[in-house]
């Protein structure tokens, strides 16, 4: 066991420390005051361009401005964001679902994204490149160290250290877009907006366009499927499962699958529904009573 072995160990520890420290401190926790109220920014944070686009579509749909093929002809209200305006403008030229590829929509998304980077909620390209460089360095260092196994009398611990560097470097290569602060803000948003989770089939009528947009921002295409199945189907949105928005949110799944629907016009009331006291039976004619 020579000095080279110890030198390798020390350098490995330093490289590991730097990589981990940079990973944690790349953006650091967001300032406590950081909170997002804009559904579009929340969508960009949660799901990038598709997330921001879902938020736009849900908000514009809830305002009655768009359908799956484009504009409905309803007058454009004041107070739309630049991205929403870009989506509306794109709807004049293409199907609603395709507006995500419109250059102006992408440009406006970049503005939203840049703001999030400035707030420390998303990592910028330079940061990501630097992080990847550090990860590659660690990975290469580990790989090189592992080659020492070919050298007689190399202690086993050195091989183990090299392996740790390889594995850590490999995982550090995948640089998440969200910073730790961004993830914290997003978790807070999802917690405080649990009522907008698709499992609850939130009423867009009650929560209005901002609630609809926030629901889609935080929970993706699944939110649009839950609130406006026909619209989601016509848009060809990915299913809730495929959208990957199912984890880590309100799981009160037993709560009233049928509750979004009205009691129905035929029956006074029924017992079959799980989410309402007047139930899910709906069909009249049996003379059922009302709860």
């Amino acid at each position, binding site marked *: 066991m020579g000095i080279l072995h110890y030198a390798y160990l020390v350098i490995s520890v330093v490289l590991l420390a730097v990589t981990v420290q940079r990973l944690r401190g790349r953006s650091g926790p967001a300032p406590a005051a950081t909170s997002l109220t804009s559904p579009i920014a929340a969508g960009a944070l949660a799901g990038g361009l598709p997330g921001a686009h879902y938020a736009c579509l849900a908000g514009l749909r809830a305002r009655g401005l768009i359908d799956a093929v484009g504009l409905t002809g309803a007058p454009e209200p004041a107070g739309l964001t630049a991205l929403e305006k870009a989506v509306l403008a794109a709807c004049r030229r293409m199907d609603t679902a395709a507006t995500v590829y419109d250059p102006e929509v992408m440009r406006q998304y970049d503005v939203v994204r840049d703001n999030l980077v400035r707030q420390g909620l998303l990592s910028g390209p330079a940061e990501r490149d630097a992080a990847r460089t550090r990860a590659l360095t660690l990975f290469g260092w580990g790989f090189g160290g592992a080659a020492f196994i070919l050298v007689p009398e190399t202690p086993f611990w050195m091989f183990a250290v090299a392996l740790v560097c390889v594995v850590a470097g490999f995982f550090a290569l995948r640089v998440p877009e969200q910073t730790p602060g961004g993830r914290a803000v997003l978790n807070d948003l999802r917690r405080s*907006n*649990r*009522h*907008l989770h698709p*499992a*609850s*089939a*939130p*009423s867009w*009528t*009650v*929560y*209005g366009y901002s*609630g609809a947009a926030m629901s889609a921002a935080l929970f993706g295409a699944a939110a649009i499927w839950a609130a406006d199945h026909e619209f989601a189907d016509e848009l060809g949105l990915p299913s809730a499962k495929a959208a990957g928005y199912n984890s880590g949110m*309100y*799981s*009160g*799944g*037993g*709560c*009233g699958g049928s*509750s*979004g*629907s*009205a*009691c*129905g*016009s*035929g*029956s*006074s*009331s*029924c*017992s*079959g*529904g*799980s*989410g*309402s*006291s*007047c*139930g*899910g*039976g709906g*069909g*009249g004619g*049996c*003379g*059922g*009573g*009302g*709860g």
Partner: protein
Amino acid sequence: MWRRWRVTERLALGGLGLGWRPPIAGFVAGLPGLGFTEVIAESLPAVLDGPLADLRDRGVPIVPHGVRLSLGGAEEVGARRVEHLARCAEWLRAPLVSEHIAFVRGGGMEAGHLLPVPRSREALAVLVRNVRRTQAALPVPLALEPIAALFGWPEDELTEAEFLTELLERTGVYLLLDVANVYANAVNAGQDPLGALTSLPLDRIAYVHVAGGAEHDGIYHDTHAAPVPSAVLELLDAVRGAPVLLERDGHYPPADELRAELDAVADAAGLARITGDTR
């Protein structure tokens, strides 16, 4: 009136509430003066978390409202269903639980509806037996709600008031009075809704339901999916001061309309507004 107050004070229930439904859970939670709420017991998840748990932890009384016990059924009330209702009461730290005077199954068939119980002596005895069994397993008092029915049974021997009064006296349960059901039954039978209401044992009221409905082919349906008609609101004057819960189960209106409806109910029932609008 004084007896009614005594009942509601003992049950720690008061003010105006709105039925908790997942699609409007955030709206319900955001009502600054929410007196209490009610959740469909059969829809409660195995583990209570999320917005409903938040409400409970805020100290808002939550009443589990059963819809599938089938207390009026000829078969013995299901022990597991009663246990679930009891668990709901414990999870929610509920001051009471409520169910319907109805049956929903028979001979292994699920009706999918709340069906009216024949108002006969025999049916009353069966109902009393099932209610007592349920009470024995519940950690809190039980309130029962007479339903709206589109038909009656030929073997009816008692009026609704007589049937209800005897049921309440023999079991000690409280009354969950749905003024919209009273209105629907009376209107569909060509009777005076207020007369029908005042004939009931109002001194046993735990709380009151109110809901909207719609007329279809000459029959009024208690749909819970429309605004409360003024004629139903007017009935609240007869139970002024009692805790009232607005039921809304679909076709939800914009938040402002729902708030206005809650204010109208509060005003009609002589209760404080819960929307933060003090006008």
